[in-house]
């Protein structure tokens, strides 16, 4: 198969895999920020936690891959609940500076905690036997693990979107993002809604962190290292939206991969320039509300 086509396929594939991971991690952040008006810079900590839990379960206790992944997501969601109840909700809709500093402090504590618990090195993740190697589709072969990632991510995305449209919980979220006061006055328990949404978003982030441990290496400085990626996805996609971050993640994943492939080193400039231009044109992001 000819060179350019091969390259394009590569880029599309790897870009999509990267986009899936970014999306899974960032969608929770988008909803939290849109719903609770809280700039949670520490969102990456949940992804990191999910990654650590999954790799620890797999490496130290031999827990099978899928089980470890599920447990990682659940553990992260559970950990997020007391954090939300005790700390975060004092600052909903509050001064941005406070939220920035609070969450930065949490990031630092997470760096220390992760170093203390797991050491300063990056965590190694060995994909399970049934996902090792390549998948041969005839015209080209693709890495099996990444293919699984795309599939898994795709199913979760569909599940999320359907959930938002078809379930009562989803309707409540949509209502509260649209107009919080109205939602409260029709009897929606917004406090409980916040807690559940936050847990869901954090759990998803944990799942994304675990799934993407291969792409975004799990190390103590994870939350700080990849902060800019997550924030760009959310800012470009639009706060409070579930669809927006998907397209933003797609854009970043593919652009980043394309540049790495063709013009390494310039990718960062391109993404920054486009982000800046887009935010100037639409400060609320692609799908956010003005």
């Amino acid at each position: 198969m000819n060179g350019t086509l091969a390259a394009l396929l590569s880029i599309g594939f790897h870009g999509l895999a990267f986009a899936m991971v970014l999306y899974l991690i960032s969608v929770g952040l988008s909803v939290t920020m849109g719903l609770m008006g809280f700039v949670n810079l520490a969102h990456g900590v949940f992804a990191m936690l999910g990654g650590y839990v999954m790799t620890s379960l797999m490496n130290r206790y031999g827990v099978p891959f899928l089980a470890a992944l599920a447990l990682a997501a659940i553990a992260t969601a559970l950990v997020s609940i007391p954090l939300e109840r005790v700390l975060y909700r004092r600052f909903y809709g509050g001064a941005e500076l406070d939220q920035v500093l609070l969450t930065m402090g949490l990031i630092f504590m997470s760096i220390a905690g992760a170093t203390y618990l797991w050491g300063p090195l990056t965590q190694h993740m060995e994909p399970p036997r049934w996902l090792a190697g390549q998948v041969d589709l005839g015209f080209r072969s693709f890495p099996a693990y990444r293919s699984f990632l795309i599939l898994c991510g795709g199913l979760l995305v569909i599940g999320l979107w359907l959930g938002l449209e078809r379930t009562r919980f989803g309707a409540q979220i949509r209502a509260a993002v649209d107009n919080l006061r109205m939602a409260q006055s029709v009897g929606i328990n917004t406090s409980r809604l916040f807690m559940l949404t936050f847990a869901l978003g954090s759990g998803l982030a944990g799942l994304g962190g675990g799934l993407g441990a291969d792409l975004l290496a799990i190390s103590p400085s994870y939350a700080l290292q990849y902060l800019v990626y997550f924030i760009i996805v959310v800012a470009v996609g639009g706060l409070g939206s579930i669809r927006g971050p998907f397209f933003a993640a797609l854009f970043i994943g593919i652009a980043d991969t394309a540049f790495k492939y063709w013009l390494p080193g310039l990718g960062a400039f391109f993404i920054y320039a486009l982000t800046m231009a887009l935010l100037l044109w639409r400060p609320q992001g692609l799908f956010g509300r003005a």
Partner: protein
Amino acid sequence: MAADDARAATVDAFARRHRFRALEAVPWLLALAGYVLFPGYLPLGAQILATILFVLSADLVLGYAGIVTLGHAAFFGTGAYTAGLLAANGWGEPLSGLVAAALIAALVGFLSGLIILRTTGLALLMQTLVVAATLYEAANKAGRWTGGDDGLSGVVMWPIFGVFRFDMFGRTAYTYCLAVLFLGWLLARQIVHSPFGRSLTGARENTARMHAIGAPVAKRRLIIYTISAALAGVSGALIAQTTSFVGLTSLSLERSGNALIMLIIGGVGRLYGAFIGVPLFMIAQDRFSKADPVYWYFWLGLLMVAVVVFARGGVLGIFERLWKWPAK
């Protein structure tokens, strides 16, 4: 009559706010004492003084204009590289280096402010991050000139006024930084107590009303952003000149973040937050991060959380509350 007197007194006090009070001499006396009492720590002292100027400039933008920025290091780094590149390429005169740094940093501040200050909230925060990140990448890519990751070396400074050589003990550096900080502080103080400065506070508190009374909010935000960038550039140049080195860390997210942290510890929007927060932070970092870096990050993070939750105004905020306490 009594009411008139009371009103006259209030107006009088308000009008005289900009006059110097005795308490304001304290930081400078302490700085001079430091020179005498700690002759072995002058290099650290010089870096603290230069950093105070940096955080002070951040306070102008953050505390007074209410612009939350995570990219202030962009201007610090611009100033540092300007001064550094001048000196590394043959022009080692310190004072003109400072002026050049201020001008270039102001230009960068003006241009970036022009573009990004239209937005607010998360979008603005994002933009400040992006500007700083872009400059970081540019400095990294231009490795041939900037030294890239290794940093810019070969920065050779000429003596100040042809007389005061930058010595290894840091004596010249300390006095130099102290003098520049003093001038920068005077400027900041002047701005803050001027009608211009007041209008910024007004814009921060209630933008709609400011628009309603016809105050040009956007223009003023841009002006203060530019001035703050210039001051940040000067502080970067000071560090570059006194350490004879410029590295990529001068443009990093960590530097921007640390500035915010030092400011919040000292107290935002009170002009002197920088003077308290910076020494506290840098001395603690010097002492404790040596012992155990893991603990340093943990306690720093915990402190930040605690400050935000319990002591929003930082150290100065606590003093204020204690001061008012007997009155209650």
